[in-house]
């Protein structure tokens, strides 16, 4: 069989445009899984919410929103070939993202080992009826996206450090950036649904 290529569809511009469309469709698809969880939240919790401490999630939310700003700065920097700002901002984004992730794991979920037993939940446990189920379902799916985003950012940072990407060719950066903003945006919906909307019931353990 003759090997061959398709010259039109090999150009970087064409591929980037196509990739962009594919990425947005992927986000559209994900809207439905996040949306499904939101539906579950309102179906099962109605006008109530679990009574959880307010300050830690607020701080974590601030960290996540701030990280989006640095991601934006990184993308702007590479567009003007400012490599120093680019790599630095990426690293800052990853750090803030990790703070959010670890905060969810160890403060909100409260992973600890007590007398050799892995214990989950200093405020609320997955087994705590619909409150635990929805709380861990929503934060868990979102945290999975956050950690994959952080890994993506670190990969891009590593490539950037080695001289990859330029003002003209940086689809990898753009993709990571929109993914990151997307994950952030999801949290903008999840945070109030989990912590703010509805009357607090119960008093935790």
């Amino acid at each position, binding site marked *: *069989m*003759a*090997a*061959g*290529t*398709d*010259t*039109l*569809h*090999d150009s970087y511009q064409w*591929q980037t*445009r*196509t990739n962009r*469309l*594919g990425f947005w*469709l*992927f986000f*559209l*698809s*994900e809207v*439905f*899984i996040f949306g*499904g*969880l939101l*539906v*579950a939240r309102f*179906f*099962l919790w*109605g006008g*109530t919410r*679990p*009574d959880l401490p307010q300050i830690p999630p607020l701080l974590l939310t601030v960290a996540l929103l701030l990280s989006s700003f640095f991601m934006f700065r990184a993308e702007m920097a590479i567009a003007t070939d400012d490599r120093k700002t680019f790599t630095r901002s990426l690293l800052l984004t990853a750090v803030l993202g990790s703070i959010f992730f670890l905060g969810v794991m160890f403060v909100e979920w409260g992973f600890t080992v007590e007398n050799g*037993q*892995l214990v989950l939940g200093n405020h*609320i446990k*997955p*087994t*705590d*009826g*619909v*409150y*635990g*189920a*929805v709380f*861990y*379902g929503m934060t868990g799916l979102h945290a999975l996206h956050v950690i994959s985003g952080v890994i993506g950012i670190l990969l891009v940072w590593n*490539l950037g450090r*080695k001289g*990859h*990407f*330029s003002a003209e*060719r*940086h*689809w*990898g950066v753009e993709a990571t950036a929109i993914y990151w903003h997307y994950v952030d945006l999801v949290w903008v919906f999840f945070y109030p649904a989990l912590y703010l909307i509805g009357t607090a*019931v*119960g*008093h*935790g*353990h």
Partner: protein
Amino acid sequence: MRVLKLGLVRGLLGGIMGWLFGFALVIGARLALGLPAKWNPNLVADTSTVWRFLATAFAPYEPAMVVGAIFFAIGFMIGVGAVTDWLKWARGIETPFHHGARIPGTPEWARYFNVDYSHKVIGVQYGITGILLLGVGGTLAMIFRLQLAQPELNFVQPDAFNTMISAHGMIMIGAILLGVGAMSNYLVPLMIGANDMAFPRLNAFAFWINVPGALLLSSAMFIGGWNTGWTGYPPLSSQAPLGVQYFFLGVFFIGLSSILGSLNVIVTTITMRSPGMSLFRMPIFVWAAFATSIIQLTATQLIGLSFLMVLMQRIMGMGFFDPGGPVWYEVDKWVGGGNPILFQHLFWFYSHPAVYVFILPGLGIISELLPVFSRKPLFGYKWVAMSSMAIALVGFLVWAHHMFVSGMSNFLRVPFMMSTLLVAVPTGVKFFSWLGTLWGGRIEYKTPMLFALGAISVFLIGGLTGPPLGTVATDMNLTDTYFVVGHFHATMFGGFVFPFFAALYYWFPKATGRMYNERLGQLHFWLMTPAFWVMSLGQIFVGTHGMRRRIASYEFELGIGDAQMMVTIAGFVIFTSVLIMLANLFVLSWRAQRAGANPWRSRGLEWQVPSPMPEMTYATTPIVVGEPYDYGKPGSTYVQFAPAPLAPALGAGVTGGD
């Protein structure tokens, strides 16, 4: 080790290693924390037979089994090589894009067992895998149809019966999704004049993830089975045997394939059409594939989510759906535990639109074939194109017609009844277009055309049984009877199986360059179609005479024994007729006569190039200059080929890296 050159073998090895790793990881972590390896120490393996042993040995380790299955899929994808290029990109290594065999020196057939980026190879891979699953699901049906052939038989034990009908249902849905993938991956690029899909690597990934999915789904039968039917409703599924978890995971991976594959189809259709092919000059099948893909891209997430929630409920105790679940804060009665109705909403939000995923491509095939074989323009092209989109969109608004008796709020019934009956309008548009196309045509009754006509007759049965189910008052009596079984088998055979077979016969000469045996094709048709009418009407009849669905046995007093026997016999005839098709296409055809480039005198783009098609289907760009279905209009052209070939491709293009 020559077999290791086959991606499939490497994938299976990788999968097994992944499974062992995942299983050991969880058990190891438990032991390290000083916990016993078994979650439930009361469960002990039954060693009386191998079957009983498999069914009981793994149950005490359910969470480890789940993690093992996830790593099975990951290990498979790494082993088969579906992620190799992406892992290189992550390290900044660019990878060349090849058309043609990827490992020089391997025989042509080996391409089908390896990761290959050509959409034609991937389309065939989808098709063959789909047909294999059709065989598995069909065999299961033959077994439990024997049990149902006569009242009060004891041929299949109730537990095994439950597992078999559940597995039959979901394996067939997997088969249909793969068949849909086969048609859209193979045909969409050909029909729009493109040489491949927009994302060839994603395309290969989307195919291969089906393989671990199908393996997990099938293996669920051996590790205890499950008794929920294909719908997996909790609370039954949250108490079902371990098999239900592998059923969930199998569906999850096949669903992932749907999502990624449909994304690819949408982008390909939008960005890769030939010059001159405006939206309303696209072949009807492309419209159908496009509408289908919109559903697959979005709604599939909901079946994934709902199954994942039950999965988590089982292994983590998260009380989404069980009303009796524990409540962590003290008493307050007005907030209960989980709610099983929520599951049904999430599940049907996918699973109703999914039925249009099954049928829209098939209906597109019917509209594609009728003009060719009646040598007349497609009647009402624009209306047909738009009706696919309309069905897809209205299909999102009707899901609760599956829940009329579920205990959901009563006020929801009437709106969902109205939206359901609304779907009949765009479906009717298609029927009128088919009749209008056939009207006064010079019809050639070749096998593909026969199957298209058979599809219409069968789909009519399915369509007419829909409205009684969509109307609340009648559905209250018909729900959960064999009437529903008759309804959906007629819709799926008319909307998928018949058109899929039509497509296999129709494009077979294009793909292989050989013509199938027309006599055997006709024999297949004349066995299968009357048998299907008997089976379908028989199911409807026993349903209205009191036969429940998903019941392993029924009483003499119902007086439906004869009808049940007819259904079983008809089922066996259908099964046999399909074997004739497989022999015709895959065995006898190797000695068959050559077909020529355009045996059907079609106007479609792909018929203007030689058969079998070269690796790069279109060496010169096709330019669309007319309407696709103007058969019998003198002087009209659909496509011209650019006079000068594209600049010869030097060196391989490069993708990835930055």
